[in-house]
């Protein structure tokens, strides 16, 4: 592999769709955003490789958040099924991608010990799960629809309902941490974390209602596809 600053074997983060480091309306970015320009760098084998996951990574109930932390009954709230595919930019599916999720319960409360929101915890809902994509890049979680919750960014600030996702793709450069939102949530238009995204990128973070995934008498379905950077560079026509 030549050490050539111009060679890019895999795609890097597309800065036109990712949020900037500094977005002052989200006040915590002000002291945490690097001020210097990011340095261009030649790709190395360390960028083409990354952690791999397979059999044994995931336990049987890991992807069912309505079952994986039951103590004395079912968690309270609206049961949902979230499905989607993890894809490269070419549309090629990414199998064995590890997806980890964490979220608030139906009242908008995280089980995290630093969450001080005055809303009840649910003894039967921890709000964390993981799964691996199958050979077609598909994943599926069963969970409870998270509630909106207040935060201290500005007066009367509320986060829209969201699920946090962490994804490992084919290499370390495809690493992504993001949030999935729900269609029609009026809080998105007021949320500086969501609004920190370039406009063209925003719709891609909103899941769509999927009636084909909805199971009668049981749970509503949502679809959320994830496209990762770190794709092999192939010429596009």
């Amino acid at each position, binding site marked *: 592999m030549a050490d050539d600053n111009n060679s890019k074997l895999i795609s890097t983060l597309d800065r036109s769709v990712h949020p900037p480091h500094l977005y002052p309306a989200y006040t915590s970015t002000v002291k*945490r955003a690097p001020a210097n320009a990011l340095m261009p760098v030649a790709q190395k*084998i360390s960028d083409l490789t990354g952690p791999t996951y397979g059999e044994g990574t995931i336990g049987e109930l890991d992807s069912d958040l309505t079952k994986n932390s039951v103590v004395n009954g079912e968690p309270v709230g609206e049961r949902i099924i979230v499905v989607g595919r993890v894809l490269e930019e070419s549309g090629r599916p990414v199998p064995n991608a590890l997806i980890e999720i964490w979220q608030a319960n139906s009242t908008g409360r995280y089980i995290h010990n630093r969450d001080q929101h005055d809303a009840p915890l649910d003894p039967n809902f921890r709000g964390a799960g993981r799964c691996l994509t199958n050979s077609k890049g598909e994943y599926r979680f069963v969970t409870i629809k998270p509630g909106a919750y207040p935060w201290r960014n500005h007066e009367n600030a509320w986060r829209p309902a969201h699920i946090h996702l962490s994804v490992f793709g084919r290499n370390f450069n495809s690493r992504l941490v993001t949030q999935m939102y729900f269609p029609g949530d009026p809080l998105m238009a007021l949320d500086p974390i969501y609004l920190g995204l370039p406009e063209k990128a925003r719709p891609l973070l909103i899941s769509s209602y999927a009636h084909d995934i909805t199971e009668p008498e049981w749970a509503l379905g949502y679809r959320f596809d994830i496209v990762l950077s770190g*794709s092999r560079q192939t010429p596009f026509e």
Partner: protein
Amino acid sequence: MTEQKTPLLQTSSQTVGPFFHYGLIFGEEHILVNEHTLGQRIIITGTVFDGDGEPIPDALVEIWQADVNGYFDHPEDPNHDKADKHFKYFGRSDTVKNGVYSFKTVKPAVATCNNDTQEAPYVCVRVFSRGMLIHAVTRMYFPNEKNNETDVLLNSIDANRKQTLIARLVENNDLPTYHFDIHLQGAEETVFLDL
């Protein structure tokens, strides 16, 4: 399969937020070695600081590196069959204790498959936190490496900022301990990479 004519838009990053620990931190992921791993054990530790020089106690630091012989256990490495199966290559740590992260690992060799006699060994680092809409990427280099003088990346950085990528060796511990502080902003801001 379905190859697109034009590339799909990447899904954008969003902040990891303050409450990721119970979703992402599983027991021992900051320990990359077991009793069978090849190589001298080292500690890599440091503090993540904000622009006021305050430690950030809700950051997530991830590392990815070669093994002690310069191999990666991943099919893209042509020598991956020689990679140490007892090494974990990937690690993650929170910074709950005063902004301090810590890893127990081995010192990587220069990646063999790069065939680059001028390259210096390094560890890939990613930093996530509340207040970061997107993570920051950097590399940690080791002090007193002769190839630090010839490495293409290190040499492309101004002398005064280059030091932000080179860890400090602290001798007074059981294991060789490399201190690598990460300054997201400020006079000592770490050099972050466009990857």
